[in-house]
């Protein structure tokens, strides 16, 4: 049986990808962020998952408002690197897993999630930044990727609760798969930021810490918040944390938070987490039968 072994949280700002590509991960300004990826890289190294489900948002690079989906899933065998207007990142295309992705798409649509199903999905920084942070050059691309894209760009965007339920539906779908797969799900984006209007650069560290507390121990409190509340506290783009709720919804009510990091250098509250499934911890420590 396939199962989800844990969830990751990660920012996805394009500046982080640039720091990686320019070999600045250890510069004084970036070190506090990339130190937060060390435990994630190590955990992935030990866990060796078979697949990453990446919950991310496009920033009008793959989709435009002529036809903007609420939720989209890639069933592609390979994902091109998108050119966002400043040249492609020097990354190889990232392999997908069509067989699992088609199964997932069927299961989600059967469960009344109205996914756009994509046989081609070039990826922008929303997905590429976390991928290049999770997997340093020597590890690219050992683990295939299924990207799931969420509209956070232009209302109407899905409610926080709908995102949490999507996570629950993903877990159901995974647990019905006969294959013996160990899957990691990642939520990306946020935390606090706003990139448009006089309120550009709004930050809120207190709220960011509260998000991280609730995400771990009481995600339904977040899922019950309106976009208005989330945007008021966390900025217009801070609403991206609904993508973390998809990840959280796919995990057990009680998770082991084995890593949490926070850094706010410029305009965005960057946070990383590892939530391990209790079941996975038991198996690894030999407690399970």
């Amino acid at each position, binding site marked *: 049986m396939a199962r989800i072994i844990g969830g990751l949280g990660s920012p996805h700002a394009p500046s982080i990808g640039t*720091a990686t590509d320019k070999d600045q991960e250890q510069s004084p*300004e970036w070190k506090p962020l990339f130190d937060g990826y060390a435990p994630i890289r190590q955990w992935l190294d030990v866990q060796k998952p078979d697949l990453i489900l990446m919950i991310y948002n496009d920033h009008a690079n793959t989709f435009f408002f002529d036809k903007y989906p609420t939720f989209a899933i890639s069933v592609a065998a390979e994902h091109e690197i998108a*050119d966002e207007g400043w040249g492609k990142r020097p990354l190889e295309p990232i392999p997908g897993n069509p067989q699992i992705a088609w199964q997932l798409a069927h299961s989600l649509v059967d469960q009344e999630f109205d996914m756009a199903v994509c046989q081609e999905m070039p990826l922008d920084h929303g997905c590429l930044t976390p991928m290049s942070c999770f997997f340093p050059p020597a590890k690219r691309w050992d683990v295939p990727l299924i990207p799931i894209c969420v509209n956070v760009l232009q*209302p*109407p*965007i899905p409610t926080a609760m709908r995102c949490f339920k999507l996570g629950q539906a993903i877990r159901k779908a995974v647990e019905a798969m006969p294959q013996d797969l160990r899957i990691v799900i990642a939520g990306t984006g946020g935390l606090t930021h706003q990139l*448009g209007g006089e309120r550009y*650069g709004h930050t809120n560290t207190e709220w960011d810490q509260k998000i991280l507390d609730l995400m771990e121990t009481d995600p339904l409190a977040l899922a019950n918040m309106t976009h*208005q509340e989330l945007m008021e506290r966390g900025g217009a783009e801070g609403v991206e944390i609904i993508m973390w709720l998809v990840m959280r919804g796919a995990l057990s009510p009680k998770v082991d938070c084995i890593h949490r990091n926070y850094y706010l250098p*410029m305009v965005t509250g960057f946070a990383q987490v590892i939530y391990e499934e209790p079941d996975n911890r038991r198996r690894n420590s030999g407690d399970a039968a």
Partner: protein
Amino acid sequence: MSKEHPWEDGGEILAIQSRQIDYTKPLPGTYLTTGIRAQRGYRLGKFCMTLMAPDNRELFKADAEKYMRDFGLTDYEKELVRSKNWNRMLRYGVNTFMILKLSNAMGVSQNHTGAGMRNQSYEDFMATRNSKGAQ
């Protein structure tokens, strides 16, 4: 308030009822593009999207007026682009991520764009940040 362009002062109320966002109480300094605002800004947003292609950026840099004319922007839209007044563009209905494609093509970095939106100099804006390197 401009009678001809009632969105200019930023107080526009979008005629949308939603459980998620109270459009009658817009967040200050925040312009969500949806409804009539998204409809109004659609052409100019599409214009910004063309600037993702390197060839188009070259054409735009070489002769912005011709590029805008060829695309079919209205006079008002051309003036908006020339003005580099990003907040006016947002109010008109251009989504933040379209604007970042335009400002990039105009050689303005994200945080310079942001300082402009805040009506601050770049230096004044940067002085409010924790770390100047990680941008």
